[in-house]
Each structure stands twice: as C-alpha cells, then as structure tokens.
C-alpha cells in the first residue's frame, strides 16, 4: 500500500496551510483541517480494503533516511490489522473532535492555531501508528508529546494551564527516557530498529536467552520505598511535628523492606529488560502509576483536546506501543507480569480517585487512567486481542464522554459538578449521548464497553499465575460503574443546584460528533462478539507470529460476574445519588482520613514535590551557585581579569615599541626627503650633468678600478 504515506502527510499539509495562512483563513481554517483528516480517513479506508484484498500484510514501504557510519537509518510505513484499527480510531476521533471544536472553540482569539495544532497532532499520531521502525515511532512519539504540550497550554494566559503543560511535558519525558533506552538496547542487540528485524524469531530467542543479573535490586527498592514513604508521611501529616514523624516513617519502611529483600538480586533477559524499558516509556505516555500525575492536570487544556489527546489517542499510544512490541514482551513472561501488575494497580488506584473528584473532567481523566491501566493489564495477562479491542471501544466512548463534558462545560460555563445538576432537561441530546457513553464505559450489556471489558476479564480469569488480576478487574469494573453513575447523577439528574447557571443545549455542529461517537460507542462492540469476533479474527497473537497462546472460550460465569460488578456499581451509586436511600455518613468519623487521602490524590503531587522536585531544585541551586561563583566568578572572570592586565601591558608595549618603530621609519623617510629635495632644482641641464658624472664615475669604477 504505497499510498499509506499520504495518511500522515495530509494533516501535516493542513497544519502548514493553517499555521501560515491562519490569519487569512480565520473562521475557515477548520475546513482545511477537517478536509485533510477526511482525506486521511478515506486513504485509510482504501488501505484497509487493499489490505483485506491482499489477505495479510500488503504494505511494507521502507526507505533510507540518513547514512551514518557504514549503516543506514531507515524509516518506513507498513499496514497491518493493528495499524488499520488504530488508523480508524485516530482518524475518526480526530475528525469528530475537529468538527466539535468548530463550535467549542468559536470566538477564541487563537482559533486557527488550535486547528493547526490538532492537525499536527493527528499527523504525528498517524505516523506513530503506521511506522514500521522504532526510530520513526520514537520521532512521532516525541512529536505527539510536543503537540500535547502545545494544546494543554493552549490557553497559556492561565497559569494553571501553563504549569499543567510543563508538567505533562516533563513527566512524559521521564517516560521517554525509558523508551529511548529500550530503543538503544534493542539496537545494540539486533543491529536494526526495523520492527520486522526485531521480530525475527531467532533474534527474539537470542535476546530471551541472554540473562543479565541486576544486583542489589532489593536494597534499591528499599531505599526508593523508604524515600517515598517519607514523602507520603511528610505530605499527609500537615502538622508541626511532621518532619520527625515523616523521617521515622521513611526509615521504618526502609528498614522493613531492606530486611525482607536486601539480598534480592534479579536476573532478567535482555528481551525482558528491553521490554520493560519500552514499557517505562509507555507508562509515561499512557499515564500509568507512578507517572500518571500529569494526566489529571492536563485537563486544563481545551476539552476537545482532552477528548482527542488525553482520552482517545495519545494516551493510548503507550498501550499501542506495548501491543506493537508484543513479541518482545511475550518472549519473556516476566516483562508481561510487570505490565499486568502495574496495569491492574493503576486501574484500581486511579478508579478510587475518580470516586471522589468533583470536577467533571477530572473524573473522566482518572477514569481514563484507570481504563488505560485496564488495557495494560489485559496485555499483561496475555489478552492481546482484548487489550486492543478495549483500546478501540474506549477511544470511541471516552471521546464521546469527553466531548459530552465539553458540551456541558460549554453550556454551563463551569466544570464543577457541584454547581450542575438537572441538566437533563436543558441539554437533552447531550444527556442522551453522555448516557450512552456512560453505559458503554460501565460495561452495561449491549454497549461497546461490555464486550471489550468482558474479554479482558475472560483473559484475566484464565491467567496462569492466579486470579488476583481478575478480581482487580472486577473491582475496577465496579468502581468505574460507580463513579460514572455518580457523575451522571450529579451533572444531569436531580435539580439544578446553582441558580446562577443558565445552561443551554449546544449547537448542532457540536451535537453531530456526539451522535456519531455515541453510535460508535454501541456499534464498535459488535465487531467483537464472543465466539464470532471479527476483531479477534484479524487482531490476534497468531497474526503477529506468536504461537501457542490459548484462545479462551466464552465463559458465562465471567460474563455474569463482570456484568454484575457493573450493575451493582450503577445500583449502589444510584441509591446514593439518585434516590438517596443509602447514607454513608456513619462511615465518616472512622474512615474520614481515607477520603482525605484519596481526595488529595494520595498526595502524589506533594510526594513528587518533596521527593523529586525539592531535592532536584536543591541540586539545581547548588549547581547554580557553583556555576555562579566558581565557574563564572573565579574561572571566567579570573581569565577575564588576567587578560585585561596582560592586555594593558601589551598595549603599552604596542604604543611605545611597535608604534615607535613604525614612526621611526616614517621620520627617517621624512628627514631624508627633506634633505634630498634640494637636489631637485628644476634645471634640466643639472640633472643631465649629474647623470653624466654618475655614468663616468661608474664607468671609472667598473672599467678601471676592477
């Protein structure tokens, strides 16, 4: 499919057109962006059709980019089932978001630029998806990070937005370091960054066979945990005595962990290390614990951005990376176990925070983190198909939810759910689509999320290392249903709480994307019906060359448990917020502190502040002082002073000795000229006489004396 390169190029062209001619295009700039993305969508359709007609990998386009040494850096595109799925997700969501933004961003003073950034982001994301070398993936990866930064900080007049953009950029950068290290490790071992080369069977086997032992990992873990416990205690105890207690807590945890595992050293294969490094990158981009802190803050950006970048596509890039590199992960199961553990933990951890947030976008942000954890968990337990399926359905219904929340924010002018309520009557269409998205996310039977979540739970249930992930998944499903019901109840149901807010339904241009995405939030599930899964037919481990993974058959127990978790979650939440039957006030006195901790996001930001940022700032300040006093003052200024004194001396030398010589020559010539000018009498005969006399003298000298 040699047309595949058009897919990312079209939005890039749109970006260039809008960024350069935005001032002239003004209100018309969205048309350029939407036309480009529609073009990409059509080319993607064409790619899908040719791919289907070719029954497998039809396109592998690769070209030399730059030579270095005797090697050649090669970049290229390829189209396979996973790519096509991602292409549809990205193009469809991007198109919907751009259409929605026409209404949402109307009247913004940087209106054209917004669409330019969206187009650039889409370009980066599409090239990330169709890249078939890790290098191009990395380049696109950084580019989506950049556009994410630009779009979070789109309203950079707001200090929070500016800070959030910076935070997102820096935290994801921490992850990018891991990606880059993984890339280097793979290059060192494979000698190429082309995916097809990396996935060659013997290469993978060789990498899996090479074991490297990492010493003292237990001691390192003890130190890290001790430091973080100190940070947690210091952040949680806001009292006068917090420092000693915090230090005691940190030392205690360090001592316990050290006693338990100080002799632990882990031996890992190269494949597992590479996979974990790549996963480290994926953790940054996909906001997995502990690098999730940037995503909730990223909600400072315009809501369509949250829908496109921070819900549907960019944050899914991490999951996509793990899926794309799945053979490397799969060859050493230990890497997958880490993925599963971190995914499951993130899914639960973020869901608990989603329970207590009052900002509509923050709830969705934590939900996104939780769902991304879900996908990672699915990949970790071997559910390649399930994870990807959930990625797709989640992209549609989360984009739907975010755009719906955008519509609500547009209609009410606030993001605080405590000020909303009763919007069902005023914004019926938004409510309808939002409800569909909610049911899809909660895994209500018949909606898209139901099928994908069920498949994840099924794989988790059959995981060979235990059932714990399965229970975590159930708990996650329960909490998801719970907080989404709470969200809907607080926003749309009941009575308006704030009389000063006059909500109104949004424009058609904003509602149409909502309808399309709501439709997809239902329909997308039906390509993955258990037993007859079209999705699973094209995207499964065997397609990417992994043999021997059991396909789990549909299990009614799992489906019932999963559905039950969702419905119970919806039910309990309804009983609390819709029909206030259940009261949990009696829990407050004894468990209020839990709520405090969760509402403070487990003090993650404060811990980072205490453990990472403050020491870093201290080191920075020390470096600065060193720079200022030693380098600048002592060395640079010292050299300056020395040079100055030296130059004073040389200037005296110059003035009197060198110039003196020059002047001497001039003076001599001057005096000579003054004397000799008297020989020029103006009498021609005299000259002739002198000539004749000189000739006679010379002749006398040459002819007679010699």
């Amino acid at each position, binding site marked *: 499919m040699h047309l595949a390169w058009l897919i990312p190029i079209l939005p890039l062209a749109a970006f260039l057109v809008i960024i350069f001619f935005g001032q002239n295009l003004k209100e018309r700039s969205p048309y350029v962006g939407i036309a480009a993305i529609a073009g990409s969508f059509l080319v993607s359709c064409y790619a899908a059709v040719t791919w289907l007609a070719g029954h497998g990998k039809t396109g592998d386009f690769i070209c030399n980019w730059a030579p270095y040494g005797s090697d050649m850096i090669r970049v290229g595109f390829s189209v396979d089932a996973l790519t096509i799925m991602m292409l549809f997700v990205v193009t469809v969501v991007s198109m919907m978001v751009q259409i929605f933004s026409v209404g949402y961003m109307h009247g913004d003073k940087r209106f054209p630029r917004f669409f330019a950034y969206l187009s650039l982001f889409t370009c980066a994301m599409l090239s990330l998806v169709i890249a078939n070398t890790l290098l191009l993936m990395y380049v696109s990866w950084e580019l989506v990070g950049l556009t994410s930064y630009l779009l979070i900080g789109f309203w950079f007049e707001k200090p929070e937005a500016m800070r959030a953009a910076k935070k997102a950029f820096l935290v994801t950068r921490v992850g990018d370091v891991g990606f880059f290290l993984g890339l280097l490790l793979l290059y060192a071992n494979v000698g190429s960054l082309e995916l097809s080369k990396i996935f060659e069977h013997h290469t993978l086997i060789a990498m899996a066979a090479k074991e490297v032992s990492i010493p003292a990992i237990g001691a390192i873990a003890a130190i890290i945990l001790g430091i973080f416990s100190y940070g947690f205690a210091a952040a949680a105890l806001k009292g006068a005595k917090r420092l000693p207690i915090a230090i005691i807590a940190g030392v205690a945890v360090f001592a316990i962990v050290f006693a338990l595992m100080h002799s632990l050293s882990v031996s890992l294969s190269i494949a597992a290390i590479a996979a974990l490094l790549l996963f480290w990158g994926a953790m940054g981009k996909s906001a997995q614990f502990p690098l999730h802190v940037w995503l909730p803050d990223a909600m400072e950006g315009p809501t369509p951005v949250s829908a496109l970048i921070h819900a549907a596509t960019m944050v899914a890039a991490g999951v996509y990376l793990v899926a794309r590199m799945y053979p490397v992960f799969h060859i050493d199961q230990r890497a997958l176990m880490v993925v599963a553990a971190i995914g499951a933990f993130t899914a639960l951890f973020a869901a608990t925070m989603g329970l207590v947030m009052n900002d509509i976008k923050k709830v969705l942000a934590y939900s996104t983190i939780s769902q991304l954890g879900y996908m990672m968990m699915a990949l970790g337990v071997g559910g390649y198909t399930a994870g990807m399926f959930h990625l797709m359905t989640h992209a549609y219904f989360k984009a739907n939810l975010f755009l719906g929340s955008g519509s609500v924010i547009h209609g009410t002018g606030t993001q605080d759910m405590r000020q909303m309520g009763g919007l069902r009557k005023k914004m019926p269409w938004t409510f309808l689509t939002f409800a569909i998205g909610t049911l899809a996310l909660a895994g209500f039977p018949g909606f898209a999320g139901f099928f994908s979540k069920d498949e994840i739970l099924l794989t988790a249930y059959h995981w060979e290392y235990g059932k714990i992930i399965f229970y975590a998944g159930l708990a996650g499903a329960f909490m998801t249903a719970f907080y989404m019901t709470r969200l809907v109840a607080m926003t749309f149901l009941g009575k308006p709480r704030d009389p000063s807010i006059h909500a109104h339904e949004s424009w058609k241009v904003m509602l149409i994307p909502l309808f399309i995405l709501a439709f997809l939030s239902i329909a997308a599930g039906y390509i993955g019906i258990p037993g007859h899964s079209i999705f699973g037919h094209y995207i499964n481990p065997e397609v990417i060359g992994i043999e021997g993974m059991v396909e789990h058959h549909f299990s009614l127990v799992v489906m019932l448990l999963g559905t039950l978790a969702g419905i119970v979650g919806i039910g309990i939440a309804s009983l609390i917020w819709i029909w206030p039957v259940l009261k949990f006030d009696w829990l407050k006195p004894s468990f209020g502190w839990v709520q405090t901790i969760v509402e403070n996001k487990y003090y993650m930001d404060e811990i980072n502040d205490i453990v990472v940022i403050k020491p870093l700032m201290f080191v920075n300040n020390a470096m600065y002082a060193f720079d200022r006093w030693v380098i600048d003052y002592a060395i640079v200024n010292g050299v300056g002073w020395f040079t100055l004194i030296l130059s004073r001396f040389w200037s005296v030398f110059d003035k009197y000795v060198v110039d003196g010589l020059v002047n001497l020559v001039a003076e001599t010539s001057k005096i000579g000229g003054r004397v000799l000018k008297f020989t020029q009498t103006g009498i021609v*005969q005299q000259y002739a*006489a002198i000539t004749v006399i000189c000739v006679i003298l010379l002749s006398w000298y040459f002819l007679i004396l010699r």
Partner: protein
Amino acid sequence: MVPLSWYITVSAALFSLGLFGMMTRRNAIALLMSIELMLNAANINLVAFSSYLRGPALTGQIFALFVITLAAAEAAVGIAIVINVYRAVRHINADDVNLMKW
C-alpha cells in the same frame, strides 16, 4: 671593410654633440633634438657591433629598430608637453619651467 673603431668614433662624436647640446641649450625643442642625437649615437653603436660580430642573430639591428620606435614615441610625448608648456607660459625656456618642483 670599415673598421669598428671608426664607427665607434663617429658614434662617440655624435653622442658628445648631443650631450653638449643638452648641457648648453635652454630651448626645450633643442633639448629634444639633442636627445635624438644621443639615441642615434647609441643606435650606430648597436648596429656596428652587431655587424662586426657577424652572429646569426640580428639582435643589434632589431634593438636599434626598437630604439627608433621609442625615440619617435618620446619625441611625440615631448613635443606634446612642450606645446602645452608653451600654451601655459608663452615660452619654452626649460630653466624657467620649474613650477612643479617642491
């Protein structure tokens, strides 16, 4: 064949005439004519020696032709200067044309 010494004698006489004219006359035209005499004395010398040495090369003769050419050019420039001097000061007395010295 006329001996070489005769030629040299004629040449020396001619040169002395030119030098004498050069030293004694004040008229610029006369000075130019004296220079012509001296140049031609040199020419006689050149041709005589060339003929006397009987070499295959006609260096002396050719050189004499060059000198004639040069003399013509010199006379042309000289006369031009003299005419301009005459226009400026209405005489061509070489001794009195000393405005341009220091």
